[in-house]
Structure formats: C-alpha cells, structure tokens
C-alpha cells in the first residue's frame, strides 16, 4: 500500500484538492460536514477520524471496476480507506451506498466514505470478493 501511484506521481491529487479549496480538510472533519457536495465527482484526499480517505473519480481510475458488477459499470469512483478499496454503488436517483452501509443512501462518495469510517470503528476493510458460491 506504500507504492507511489501514477496519480500521486502526477500530482493531480494535490492539484485537485487545491482547486476544490479543501486542502485544509486533512484535520478531523466533522461528521456533519457538508462540503461533500463540492467534491461530488472530484478527487478527495483527507484524514477523517484518523483514517485516510482517498476518492478517485471514475475518469482517473483506469476503469478497473469493470469486473465488479458484470454490468459494465466503469463509471464508478474508487474509494479507499487507508489504502483498502471500499465497494461502492450508485443508485438510479444519484445517491450512493457502500458494502458497509448497504441499506442507507448517501448524497455523494465522500459522505459515504465518512460513514464507512464511522462504521468501521478502526477496523480494516477486507478485500472484497466478487460473486461468491451458491448456497
């Protein structure tokens, strides 16, 4: 998880943060923070309740989501918590859910990621496996 990614090497993360004016968001953000709307489809890199949240928009994530849904859903952002990917999904009405909050919708990926951090209470995300066996 320590290798430098192409995005970091290109400096796009810092650039996007500055453009969005949230470079100061690396301190503990409040649970009620509503700046998420500004980053709806943007890059996020922040520390929230001691966990590093990184969100990469679909256009920059190289389409490696292709196999997760079997439905050609390459338009999803990549959400990582301390380097581990969080499985996310977009609803038809534009809201979002994740595998750790699967029955509750969020307005945007950052709200979803912060909710996941609160839910995890420090626990590390497991690698998600695609379609499991049959019952």
């Amino acid at each position, binding site marked *: 998880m320590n290798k430098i990614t192409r995005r970091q090497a290109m400096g796009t993360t810092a650039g996007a943060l500055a453009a969005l004016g949230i470079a100061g968001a690396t301190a503990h953000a409040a649970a009620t923070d509503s700046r998420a709307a500004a980053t709806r489809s943007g890059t996020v890199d922040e520390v929230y309740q001691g966990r590093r949240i990184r969100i990469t928009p679909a256009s920059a994530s190289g389409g490696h989501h292709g196999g*997760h849904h079997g439905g050609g*859903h390459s338009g999803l952002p990549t959400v990582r918590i301390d380097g581990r990917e969080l499985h996310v999904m977009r609803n038809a009405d534009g809201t979002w859910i994740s595998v750790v909050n699967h029955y*509750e919708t969020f307005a945007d990926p950052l709200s979803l990621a912060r909710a996941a951090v609160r839910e995890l209470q420090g626990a590390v995300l497991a690698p998600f496996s*695609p379609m499991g066996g049959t019952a």
Partner: protein
Amino acid sequence: MTVRKNQASLTSEEKRAFTNAVLELKRTGVYDRFVTTHNGFIMSDTDSGDRVGHRSPSFLPWHRRFLLEFEAELQKADASVALPYWDWTADRTSRSSLWAADFLGGTGRARDGQVMDGPFAYSAGKFPVNVRVDGRAYLRRSLGASVAELPTKAEVDAVLAMPVYDMAPWNSASNGFRNHLEGWRGANLHNRVHVWVGGQMATGVSPNDPVFWMHHAFVDKLWAEWQARHPQSTYLPAAGTSNVVDLNDTMRPWNDVTPADMLDHRKFYTFDTEPAAAASQR
C-alpha cells in the same frame, strides 16, 4: 407442513431448537455459504445492469427461495424447526423478548458494538463471523442507533394498499409495492430495519446476524398479505425485460426456479396467521 410463527409467540423450547439449529449450520460451514451468496448478489445487483436479488422485481421471490433453502437446511439439523418471523411493527424496541439472552441476544456494547450475550455472542465461542467486509470476527449490533424508529403499522398498511406490484424502470427508482416494501422509495420499510439493527445487518453480509432470517420472513409475509389484499394483481414484469427477471424467467443462482414458482407460499409453508383477503379493502 412447515408453519412459520411470530417469534414473539415461540416457547422456550422452540427458541432453543431454532438457535441450536442455526449454531449447527454455522459449525458445519453451511451457514456461511448463505452469507457468501447474499453478499455476492448484493454487490452485483445494480440499477442499470443485471439485478436479481435486490433493487428489482425479483427481490421478493428471490428472498422467498433463499429463505426456503435456509429453512430446509435448518430442518436437516432439527426437523421440528421453522423460520420464525419478526413483526417489527409490533416488537419495536430493544427490550423485546427477541433480543433476550435466551434467543438472539441484545444490542452491542458501546465501545465496539460487540454483542455480549445470547448464543451468538462471540464470547460464547460458537458463532464467529467468517464472511466479512472488515477485520471484525464478532457479531455486532447497535439497535436503534442509526435510525430511531422501526416502521409503524400505519406505514406498512400504506404500502400494502399499493395495487401495482412493480413498475418500470424495475429498480430502486420504481414506484409500486415492491420498491416501497424494499425501501428505496417512500417511508422505507425493509431497508430501514436493516439500518435500525446496525452492525453486520447494515452491511452486504447481513445474514451474519440470525435476525436477518426473521426480518425477511416478515417481509415475505407482507408479500403474502399484499397478495391477499390484491387478488387481481400479480408479479410484474411479465416478459421481455432486459436485465430483469420476468415472471417465467429463471433466477440465479439456482437457475431452476422462476418468480411464478414462488408466488404461492402455501405450497411450501403456512403462517400461524394466514393473510385473509380483506373484503373491506376493496
């Protein structure tokens, strides 16, 4: 014939038989196969792609079949066992006997959400959470923490009054009975109960909490009650719908069962109180 009873009316002996059968399926590994299957579907069912288990018309027949298979496995362990249902409009607090130590155990402790009593507490040693989305191997709950109230009887009745089973676009944006019962739209019934329980129940691996089966047994009963109220209505769509299971299409992962096969629950079990066609409704 299997009779599914309200969990609140079970005898001590029936509760013990149910929890022991669940523990036996956990011990043999059968239980975790069900968790894996559910999570696989929940991660792959999407609003704009193929969808079978959730956010689609087949949400109800898929879970009916899933519960039938789980119940059959329980009955291999103890032939006397049937799935109880949890009427969360009636037993709506963490003080319900459902959450007592002789049945499912209570809510989790504040520090880490860990359930500390009952047969499924991690400390009891017989119910490790193996199929999981994070590192925690203990059953967790936070009853009523993420959403204050379970759905009310009035909210359920309003959804049962909806005459059309499901509507295009046949997903989480749909109007109609199925999506209102599932909870992506409107007052939010099924989804809200998952959130109210919290812990694993709020995640894609929700069958890790045995209350999953009782919640879905009640959702299944509500489908039967809707059918009784709307005898002229049926499962939709009928045919030719892309990405969606039509009435006579087979459902994954079984591939040998259709929604049409699942419409009449009385082929498989009855309820302690069978839904009656309410003449006053029409």
